[in-house]
C-alpha cells in the first residue's frame, strides 16, 4: 500500500493531496528558515491561531450573502485578514507597550483562538452551519479535497516560495545583524513584516492540509533539522525546503495508505522523524557526536595530566587516569612508568615548559592565546622559533634589574 501511495498509484484524491502537501512543505520549510533565524519562531503560533475568528466570520458573511459558506477561497481570505490583525496586535504589544514578545504572543494567541471557538460554536447552531465542518481546519482534513482546492494550495505555495527566495538576502541580513542592516538603509520593521506576511501566507495556504494548530511544526521543524547539517544560510533554507517537501509528500502518502490516518499529524510526525535522526546523528552538531567528542577530549586531558604526573614523580589518584595509562602501555598497574611512558612523560613536560616560556613572551602573544594544555608547540612554531625557545629553557631566567 505504502509503495503504491509513494508512487502516486492510489487514485486521484491521494495524488492531489500528496503533491499539494509536498509544495506546502517546501514553501513552509524555506519560509520558516528566516523566521527561525530571526529567533521569532513562536510568532507563527500566534499568527496561525489568529486565523480562526476570520474563518468563522468569513463563513457567516458568505452565508449571509447567499453563497456556499464552505468555499475555500473565501475562508482563506477571512483567515488571512484576521491573522494579519493578530500579527499587528503582537507587533504593537511588543513595540508599543512594556510587554515582552512571548507575553504578547500568549495573549493574542489565546484571545483570538477563544473568539474563534465561540464563533464556530455559534455557527454550529445556525441552520446553514450544521454541516459546515469548519472544525476540520483546526487539524486539517484532506478527505474531500477538490481539484480547485489543490490548485489553490499549489499556486499559493509556489508564490510564497518565489517571494521568499526573492527576499532571502535582506531577510538573512536582518536576521543576522539588524543594526547593520538598518545602518545600510534597509527598513528593518518592513522586512520583518514581510517575513511575517510570508509566514501568514503559508499558514493560510496550509489550513486545508495540516490545519492551523500544526502548521507551526511545518514552519519550524525543517529549518531546525537543516541547521544540524550545515553552517551556511543558503544551505539551511535549501535543506529545510527539501525536508519540508519530503515530509509533506511521505506523510500524505502514509496517511493515504491506510484508512483513518490523519494527514496533517502524520506529516508532522514524518518531519519530526527527520529531526530526531538529525539530532542524534548529525556529525557536527548531533548529540551522539558531541558526546563522543567530549569523551575523547576528556581522555586526552586525563592522559596528559597522567603523563605530567609521571614526569614529575607525583602520585596519580584518579582511577580513570591510571587505567588509561595502563591501557596505552605507559604505566604499570602500580603506577610506575614504563619505558615508553617515561619518554612520553618527558615530552609532555617539555611541552609544558616551552608553553610556559612562550606565554611570558610579548612577541608570541598571538600564539600564546592558542594554549590548550594538549598541543605540542612543534605543530605551531617553526624549527628556528622552537630552538630559540629551548635555549631560553636551558638558560637561567633573566632577572629584571
Amino acid at each position: 500500500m505504502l509503495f503504491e501511495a509513494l508512487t502516486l498509484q492510489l487514485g486521484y484524491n491521494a495524488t492531489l493531496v500528496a503533491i499539494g502537501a509536498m509544495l506546502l512543505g517546501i514553501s513552509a520549510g524555506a519560509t520558516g528558515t528566516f523566521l527561525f533565524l530571526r529567533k521569532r519562531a513562536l510568532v507563527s503560533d500566534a499568527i496561525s491561531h489568529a486565523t480562526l475568528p476570520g474563518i468563522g466570520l468569513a463563513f457567516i458573511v458568505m452565508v449571509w450573502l447567499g453563497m456556499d459558506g464552505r468555499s475555500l477561497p473565501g475562508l482563506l481570505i477571512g483567515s488571512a485578514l484576521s491573522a494579519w490583525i493578530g500579527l499587528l496586535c503582537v507587533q504593537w504589544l511588543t513595540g508599543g507597550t512594556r510587554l515582552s514578545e512571548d507575553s504578547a504572543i500568549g495573549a493574542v494567541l489565546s484571545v483570538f483562538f477563544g473568539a474563534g471557538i465561540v464563533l464556530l460554536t455559534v455557527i454550529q447552531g445556525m441552520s446553514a452551519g450544521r454541516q459546515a465542518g469548519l472544525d476540520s481546519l483546526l487539524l486539517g482534513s484532506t478527505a474531500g479535497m477538490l481539484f480547485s482546492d489543490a490548485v489553490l494550495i499549489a499556486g499559493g505555495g509556489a508564490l510564497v516560495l518565489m517571494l521568499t527566495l526573492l527576499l532571502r538576502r535582506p531577510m538573512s541580513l536582518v536576521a543576522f545583524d539588524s543594526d547593520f542592516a538598518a545602518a545600510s538603509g534597509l527598513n528593518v520593521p518592513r522586512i520583518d513584516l514581510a517575513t511575517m506576511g510570508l509566514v501568514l501566507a503559508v499558514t493560510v495556504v496550509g489550513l486545508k492540509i495540516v490545519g492551523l494548530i500544526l502548521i507551526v511544526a511545518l514552519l519550524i521543524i525543517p529549518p531546525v533539522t537543516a541547521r544540524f547539517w550545515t553552517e551556511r544560510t543558503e544551505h539551511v533554507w535549501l535543506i529545510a525546503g527539501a525536508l519540508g517537501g519530503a515530509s509533506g509528500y511521505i506523510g500524505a502518502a502514509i496517511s493515504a495508505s491506510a484508512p483513518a490516518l490523519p494527514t496533517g499529524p502524520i506529516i508532522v510526525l514524518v518531519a519530526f522523524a527527520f529531526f530526531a535522526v538529525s539530532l542524534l546523528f548529525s556529525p557536527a552538531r548531533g548529540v551522539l557526536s558531541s558526546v563522543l567528542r567530549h569523551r575523547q577530549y576528556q581522555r586526552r586531558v586525563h592522559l596528559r595530566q597522567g603523563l605530567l604526573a609521571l614526569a614529575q614523580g607525583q602520585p596519580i589518584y584518579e582511577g580513570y587516569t591510571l587505567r588509561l595509562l595502563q591501557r596505552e602501555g605507559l604505566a604499570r598497574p602500580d603506577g610506575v612508568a614504563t619505558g615508553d611512558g617515561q619518554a612520553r612523560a618527558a615530552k609532555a613536560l617539555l611541552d609544558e615548559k616551552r608553553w610556559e616560556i612562550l606565554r611570558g613572551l610579548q612577541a608570541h602573544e598571538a600564539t600564546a592565546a592558542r594554549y590548550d594544555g594538549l598541543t605540542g608547540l612543534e605543530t605551531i612554531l617553526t624549527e628556528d622559533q622552537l630552538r630559540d625557545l629551548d635555549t631560553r629553557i636551558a638558560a637561567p631566567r633573566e632577572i629584571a634589574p
Partner: protein
Amino acid sequence: MTALNLATQNGLRPEAAEIATSPLAIRGLTVSYGEKPAIFSVDMTIRPGSMTAIIGPNGAGKSTLLKAALGIIRPLSGQTTVFGRPLDTQRARIAYVPQRASVDWDFPTTVLDVVLMGLYRELGLLRLVRSSHRKTATDALRRVGMADFADRQIGQLSGGQQQRVFLARALAQGADLYLLDEPFAGVDAATEKAIIAVLKSLKADGKTVVAVHHDLATVEQYFDHAFLINVRPVAEGTVAEAFTAESLQAAYGGRLATAQIDRLSQAG
C-alpha cells in the same frame, strides 16, 4: 579647512558652513527610553578626515548617540546630516561597525559571507555574487589579517577575530565615513594593534573615523579628536582641547581620581 573657507566665501554662516562640510553633523539629538533621556540635546560636528573618539562613562549614551545618528533607533528629536546632505541620501558613504556582542555568532554563516553583507547595497535583491565581489571581500579580509579564515564558520572565531571580520565588512563597503561602536571591547592586544593600524590607514586615505571608546589611557595615542559625553555633550575638539581637568570632571564626576584627571589633562 579649505572647503570650510570656500563655503564661508559662498555666504554661509560659519556654523552652517561647518555643517555643510562635516562628514557627520548632529543637531539637537535626544533619545529617550521611557521618560529618562539616554542622550539629551546633543550637537556634534565631526571634522573631515579626523579620527574622533566618543568618550564617556558607562551609561553616558555613547552607543545610543551613534545608533540614533544613523537612524537605527528613532530619536525623539534632532537631525543628522552627512557630508552636508540628509542621512538617507548618503547611506552608501557610511560604514557602521556594531558592537560585537550585538549579534549571535552561532548564526549559520561563514566569514566571507559576513563580509559580503557589506556589499548589500551593491548586490541588492537579486544580483549574483561575482568574482569581483569576492575579491573585494577577500581584500578587506586581507587588510585585517583574516584572509585565511574566509571559509570558516563564524562561531569558530575568537573575540578578536570576530571584531576583525566586522571591520572587514565595513572596509568592503568602501565608505568615506566609518562609525565603530566599541571596536576594542574584549579583544586581544594583537587585534587592537591591527585594528588601530587599519583605522590610521583609513585616515591617511582621507576617510573620517568615529569610534566609541572606553579606555581613557589610549585616547591620546589612537585618536586626534575627542567628543566627551555624559547624556549631555561635555566637550569637543582635539584631544588636547577636549581633555581638560574641568571637562573630565564634568563627564566622569567622582568616578575618576584627581590624579588620573591630572595625568590625562596634562597629556592632552
